């Protein structure tokens, strides 16, 4: 079982052991990935298009075989186990709901082909349809359903098999924004109520952050960071993750000096910056350092901020209004563009800053991220 921090105990339900997948010798879709997923986890594989998420998922399902490495389910090596013999089920991106069968037949299919007694099937099908709020839809044909309903049929069809693990490949990408948000909550509710391990593939960071309790961020076939959503956001391990999860302002930096335990950096556009005690001890040796800060941690002021805050004076280039928040784009002395996100708290239609204005931008030192590579 997972605790709140996403730490695990006992045997993982899925262990991916240095798995590599090459296509045709030249394309390395998955590159030495090792992961362990605990029973009951809601796990997300997140990454940009083409980073190998689907390939990894298809290897777990058994539709591709690893070029190298092993995949274990419940401690059993799956190398020579065909897809129809694995205790896992998949919800396909296209849903793949059989068009020539009714909804009930679709859901019953996986039970029928594995010899579940007829007397048991009807009840379980009805139960699974209820679970996804499709009770009474059994007699319909898939072409009489909306996209969202079809997806729920695919979910019911997989869940009725009571798999150890449910794989979902971009399950929400075909839905519109409103429905997608509703289904995100729905999936979390479902996962909690059935207690099955979910592994979801997505390229939408907000989807992964809001649903999963652990996320593996992938880039070009490798896992760049494996952490809980909050950890990924607040403590990204590298530039790629910092940039991919949310927005971030980056300042190139190099170590200027060490001063009794705290690091002093020379930061482009900011000058000398003293980091809080202990920060950057691990990264100090690296050449390509960057100082990063999230847009919502920045504050805009007309007066020079108090000296303990880090900051610079810049010029407002653009203001973008999004309703609950606005983004202000500044340029610093070095000519970098910096994004600042501000909450529109008062009910005012006047922007709080105007284009061309010079303002101070600052943040608390502990909100600084130091990134290597």
């Amino acid at each position, binding site marked *: 079982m997972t605790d709140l921090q996403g730490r695990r105990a006992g045997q993982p339900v899925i262990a991916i052991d240095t798995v590599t997948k090459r296509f045709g010798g030249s394309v390395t879709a998955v590159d030495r990935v090792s992961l362990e997923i605990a029973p009951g986890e809601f796990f997300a594989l997140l990454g940009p298009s083409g980073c190998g998420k689907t390939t990894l998922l298809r290897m777990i399902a058994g539709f591709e075989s690893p070029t190298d490495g092993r995949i274990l389910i419940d401690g059993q090596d799956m190398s020579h186990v065909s897809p129809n013999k694995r205790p896992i089920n998949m919800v396909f991106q296209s849903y793949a709901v059989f068009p020539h069968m009714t909804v009930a037949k679709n859901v019953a299919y996986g039970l029928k082909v594995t010899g579940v007694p007829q007397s048991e099937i009807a009840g379980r099908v009805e139960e699974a349809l209820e679970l996804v709020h499709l009770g009474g839809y059994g007699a319909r*044909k898939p072409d009489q359903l909306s996209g969202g309903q079809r997806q729920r049929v695919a979910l019911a069809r997989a869940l009725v098999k009571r798999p150890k693990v449910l794989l979902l490949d971009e399950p929400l990408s075909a839905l519109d924004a409103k429905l997608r948000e509703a289904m995100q909550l729905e999936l979390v509710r479902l996962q909690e109520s059935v207690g099955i391990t979910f592994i979801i593939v997505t390229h939408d960071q907000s989807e992964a952050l809001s649903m999963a309790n652990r996320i593996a961020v992938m880039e070009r076939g490798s896992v760049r960071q494996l952490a809980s959503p909050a950890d990924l956001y607040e403590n990204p391990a590298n530039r790629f993750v910092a940039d991919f999860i949310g927005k971030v302002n980056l300042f190139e930096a190099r170590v200027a000096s060490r001063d009794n335990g705290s690091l002093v950096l020379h930061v482009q556009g900011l000058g000398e910056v003293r980091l809080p005690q202990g920060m950057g001890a691990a990264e100090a040796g690296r050449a390509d350092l960057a100082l990063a800060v999230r847009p919502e941690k920045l504050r805009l002021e007309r007066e020079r901020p108090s000296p303990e805050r880090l900051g610079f004076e810049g010029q407002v280039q653009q203001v973008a209004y999004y309703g609950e928040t606005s983004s202000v784009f500044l340029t610093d002395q070095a000519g970098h563009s910096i994004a600042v996100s501000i909450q529109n708290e008062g009910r005012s239609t006047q922007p709080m800053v105007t284009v061309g204005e010079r303002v101070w931008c600052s943040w608390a030192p502990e909100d600084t991220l130091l990134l290597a590579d």
Partner: protein
Amino acid sequence: MESWRRNPLVFAAIALPPAFWLVLFFLVPLGIVWLYSFGENIDLVTIETTWTLENYRRAGEPEIFTLFVRSLWLAGVATLVCLVVGFPIALVITTSSPKWKSWLLLLIILPFWTNLLIRTYALLNILGSRGRINEALGWLWEMGDGFLTIIGLGQLNLLGERFTPLTLLGNNFGVIFGLVYVALPFTVLPLYAALERMDRSYIEASLDLGAGQLRTFFSVIIPLASSGIVSAIIITFIPTLGSFLTPDLLGRGQVDMIANVIERQFKSANDWPFGAALSFILLYATFFALAARSLLAGRRGREDAEAF
């Protein structure tokens, strides 16, 4: 389409030549043959349309009726064999890599590059009593016989006194073999098109849900390819039913199909009116089969629409 109709002159200019062609070279000859089928020979070269139904009545006589039944049977068996052989071929082509796919498709279409007559003579060469198959079997017989002699069982004549060639021509086998050989590409191509269109994730979903390969084949692949299968049946069955050359050459006059009898009416028997009547019966049969198919398809479409 709409915009064409608003420009009747342009529409006419485009539609007229093909319409003219169709009327002159298809409908007019067809009409003439249709009139013949209600005619009588009054002398060797003259046919008078007397609106007699005698020719159609003669078509119902037992030997002609048997001939129709046999033609349907031969074409039906050939179509079935084509489906059973063609489906795995189409499946293999669909699942092969893109490079292989184009070569395999070329292999399927290759026979079209050679004249049917030449291909049929090649089949004669293969199936004949001194053909390649019997040659190979004869060689095997020699080898087996020699082997038995060596191990001292020669005088028992276990393999018979001497090699008797298989009869592969002049019987149903030869004709069906030839019909299948000619029609197979026509079966494979629509099946291939249907399988190629099919979303691979349906097959994967079936496997994922625990179904085996065979189960997936019968419960998912075949139903989803059903429209392609129906097209394949029609496009195989109709030309096969009207085959002339294959039964003529491979049947050796022993296995006639309807087209052979029609040909005889127009040639040696010089009974054009009867030949015309037989031709039209074949045409009506084909027409009804097609009509039934589109009616069925139409009803299915309507049912789907009503269910909404």
